[in-house]
């Protein structure tokens, strides 16, 4: 450094500096590797700047304007945010998404892990069962919605027929205020193939001798699950919880599709946050207002993720770190 500064002042400096630099970069494999590495990942860097960095800051900017997609955007300060917190539909849709997430997340975690545990049993024909368990999650989402609306059709659906046979009440499911969200949760529980397969891979990675030693010590099946299986697969649980959480926060497609089958719908009980955002942005062109909603969505999910990662230090066990 010092040398560079001094040579810069001398009249012959430009030549020497340039030549040492060039030689330096040729000699330095680190510099070369850096340039090569950046060159290879440059498509992603361009994509990141264009599809994440730019829209992220633009969303924040728009959220302080009355932008409507056509005219110029005027700065209106916090007006959008103030309006947001006085908007009953904002609160309803936020609550609905919260409701769905809080119920669906634990249920789907238990169900996917349960399915994986079933598949991890030592029985013949496991591959066949695995195929059957997995198939619902490759059914196109829109087709799944069609099937469930039909199964749970209030008047002609097979589910209500079976309930009547069992002398149980036959509700309106997707079309009732009380049961619409639970219906969506059932639909969500049908397509858990992805987390199930990830759990299964996690279960198969637990060393067998751990269980054998524990069994020799007389540990019950429950204790083996609680003190061996759960800690060993806790990183996988964290991974799956995060994946499911992202899906829950952005819950949209199913609600949007099923409302197409019944435009009247059960009022606002199936009005999810992202749906409201979509409507404000693309039907009413209130892009400033919906940008405020989008930024709020980002803040909420960032806060949840940070809390989750912080808490994970306490309940996630990384076997490799201990060795």
């Amino acid at each position: 450094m010092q040398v560079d500064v001094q040579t810069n002042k001398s009249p012959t400096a430009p030549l020497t500096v340039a030549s040492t630099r060039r030689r330096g970069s040729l000699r330095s494999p680190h510099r070369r590797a850096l340039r090569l590495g950046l060159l290879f990942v440059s498509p992603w860097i361009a994509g990141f700047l264009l599809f994440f960095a730019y829209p992220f800051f633009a969303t924040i900017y728009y959220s302080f304007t009355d932008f409507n997609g056509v005219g110029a955007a005027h700065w209106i300060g916090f007006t959008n945010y103030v309006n947001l917190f006085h908007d009953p539909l904002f609160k309803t849709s936020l609550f609905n998404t919260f409701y769905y997430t809080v119920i669906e997340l634990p249920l789907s975690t238990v169900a996917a892990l349960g399915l994986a545990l079933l598949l991890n049993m030592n029985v013949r024909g496991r591959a066949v069962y695995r195929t059957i368990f997995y198939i619902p999650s490759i059914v196109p989402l829109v087709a799944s919605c069609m099937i469930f609306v039909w199964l749970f059709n209030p008047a002609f659906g097979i589910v209500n027929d079976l309930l009547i046979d069992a002398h149980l009440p036959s509700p309106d499911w997707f079309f009732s205020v009380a049961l619409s969200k639970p219906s969506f949760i059932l639909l969500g529980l049908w397509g858990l193939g992805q987390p199930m397969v990830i759990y299964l891979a996690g279960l198969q990675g637990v060393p067998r001798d751990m269980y054998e030693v524990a069994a020799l010590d007389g540990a019950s099946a429950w204790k083996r699950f609680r003190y061996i299986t759960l800690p060993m697969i806790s990183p996988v649980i964290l991974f799956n919880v995060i994946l499911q959480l992202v899906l829950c926060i952005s819950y949209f497609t199913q609600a949007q599709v099923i409302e197409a089958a019944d435009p009247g719908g059960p009022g606002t009980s199936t009005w999810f946050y992202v749906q409201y955002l979509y409507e404000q942005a693309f039907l009413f062109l209130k892009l400033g207002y919906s940008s405020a909603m989008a930024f709020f969505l980002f803040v909420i999910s960032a806060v949840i993720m940070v809390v989750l990662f912080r808490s994970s230090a306490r309940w996630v066990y990384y076997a490799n770190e201990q060795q």
Partner: protein
Amino acid sequence: MPTSSSRSTRRLGGSLAKHATLIAVSVLLGFPLFWMVLTSLKTNPQSLAVPPLWWPHPFVWRNYPEMLSAVPFWRFVLNTLMYAGVTIVGVCVSSSLVAYGFSRIRWRGRDILFQVMVGTLLIPFFATLIPLFTMYKNFHMVGWYLPLMIPTFLGSSVFSTFLLRQFFMAIPESLSDAARVDGANEFTIFSRIILPMAKPALATVILFQFIYCWNDFIGPLIYINNQVWYPLSLGLNLILGTYTTNWPWVMAAATAATAPIIVLFFFTQRTFIKGISIQGTGVKG
């Protein structure tokens, strides 16, 4: 004497209980698809019978040709295939380059950038959508698939990059070193040595991208507004909204959209399951 026979009957009993549980769950999970196919083979009055008719008699196959001609179903399929075809090229090219840079070359800041890339998975799609939509609108790209295709050429498929990186890391460094000694540059090593070895991983990437496009609803909903260009997902949505009084047609459409993907799954199961499992193994640390 607790003989081996009593132990083996207990084992048999345990195995029976296991199979009973597995079969019960299979029936529960399989029933919706079974009912979908059965309904698609009924006449409309049969489908609306109360109590429901379990078995269609006779089987009505004409729901399929009728539904296929009532809506431009094949056009929807064609659009979907085009969408999938172009984005598969984009994902294969960009994700393999990026994955190579994130695995086979050591450089400062690599791992931090990689974590940033994985972190983008946590950002909700709608949190960044509005400026993107406005941008594409200003470039007159809204209405066709370009907004959904361009990102795939710029490494937008984090899953594919992740999967290819895992695969590249497992290839011994000595192969690259040998080529370097022979004077090959990094791009030659990438295209002549590493990429040909990664064919199984690329097959997985292609498979997942295809299924992603076949099922993608939100992307086309935002950017495609002309029915002529609808992909299958929007087409199905249209059918559901139009024929709510004709459930056999709706179920025929659902079956027609689901069957190819299930057939594909049967033939590619191993690739498929491995591809998903890799995600879970890569999360340590």
